[in-house]
């Protein structure tokens, strides 16, 4: 059966498509995303404190490398098969190389509902994957001479809402530990799934508003929005296997690879590559890939992982 949180997403899409007057105030959207980002960060931080940090460094470097590689993979496809202008191809590549925290929250809820455990320090990977693709995207759009613009962009993303809250949450979780955070659990941890459900209701409404753009830009975006995440998920899965992650961890990493940013990257591209049409990248990442991952992708990546791990070995 579909997960309840996904039902909220579908409700949002349905309401949007039917032109219902249902609207969530943007301030509610902001509150929800702040709570989710902090909660995700803190959960990661709690776990991080339990790990020997140095042991994670190799994994972290590998994940960063994937963050650089994925947009480089996507770019030529967009340029040659999609026949998109260079700036648009670069911008979309950056979106797909980076990650969507919303999708991450859904995969985590999906695994918890099925009692599948995963390496709980995964939020660290969310942070690590957010930025490299943006840098690659800018270089792809503007050439290597864009050093100044690069530095400013990196700076802006580092100080953007998502990184500040994720990293802040990580540090708080790491310093306070599970015990220390028991007092604030009733706001951040217990209602997590409910907050996610409400967030997905809103994302459904926003997704529905992207469908018009999608229609205008034809089939290529649709195809790319479905195939790119599957290919990326396989990359993530292979990497997870190489790093010796558990099945749950592999599903998370595959989903992160498959997910496309719709918050941090659009903002960064708007500033650094303003010539790129934001309608195009959002229609793909939010209008196609986000719903695909949430409804079809996550179960698919789990199925793939289980079979791959059964064949090639791994827990």
């Amino acid at each position, binding site marked *: 059966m579909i997960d309840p949180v996904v039902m909220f997403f579908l409700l949002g899409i349905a309401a949007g498509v039917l032109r219902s007057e249902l*609207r*969530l*105030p*943007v301030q509610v*959207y902001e509150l929800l995303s702040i709570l989710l980002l902090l909660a995700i960060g803190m959960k990661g931080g709690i776990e991080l404190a339990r790990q020997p940090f140095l042991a994670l460094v190799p994994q972290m470097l590998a994940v960063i490398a994937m963050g650089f590689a994925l947009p480089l993979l996507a770019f030529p496809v967009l340029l040659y098969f999609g026949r998109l202008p260079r700036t648009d191809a670069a911008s979309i590549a950056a979106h797909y190389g980076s990650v969507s925290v919303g999708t991450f929250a859904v995969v985590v809820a999906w695994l918890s509902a099925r009692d599948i455990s995963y390496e709980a320090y995964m939020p660290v990977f969310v942070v690590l994957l957010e930025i490299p693709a943006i840098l690659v995207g800018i270089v792809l759009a503007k050439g290597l001479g864009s050093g100044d613009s690069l530095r400013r962009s990196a700076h802006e993303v580092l100080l953007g809402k998502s990184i500040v809250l994720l990293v802040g949450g990580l540090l708080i979780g790491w310093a306070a530990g599970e015990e220390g955070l028991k007092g604030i659990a009733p706001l951040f941890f217990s209602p997590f799934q409910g907050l996610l459900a409400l967030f997905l209701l*809103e994302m459904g*409404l*926003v997704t529905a*508003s992207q469908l018009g*753009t999608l229609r205008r830009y034809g089939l290529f975006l649709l195809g790319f929005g479905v195939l790119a995440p599957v290919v990326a998920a396989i990359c993530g899965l292979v990497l997870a296997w190489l790093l010796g992650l558990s099945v749950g961890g592999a599903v998370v990493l595959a989903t992160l690879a498959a997910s496309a940013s*719709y*918050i941090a990257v*659009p*903002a960064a591209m*708007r*500033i650094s590559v*303003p*010539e790129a049409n*934001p*309608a195009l990248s*959002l229609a793909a990442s939010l209008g196609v890939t986000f719903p695909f991952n949430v409804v079809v992708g996550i179960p698919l990546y789990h199925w793939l992982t289980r079979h791959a791990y059964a064949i090639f070995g791994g827990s």
Partner: protein
Amino acid sequence: MHQHQRRLLTIVTESTIEAHLLRDIQRWGAHGYTITEARGKGARGVREGNWEANRNIRIEVVCDDSSAERIAGGLRAHYYDNYAMILYLSNVDVLRPEKF
């Protein structure tokens, strides 16, 4: 009551670029500004304001004629082509001309 004529420059644009825009219009001569949250529709489609990527802001700057020209010119040169943006100017009377 003596009144002095100034120009009121109104800009409606994407909220994403707020920080950069404010820095620029102050560099081009604005001594102050007022911002309200907005949503709307124009050549670049509907911007519903229900989500970070489609929020508009409406910026007002009261200034003298030459600053208004400079700001409008700067916006045309650096922002017009790539951002959802409109801009219009009108005449207003102020009481304390030294402020603007």
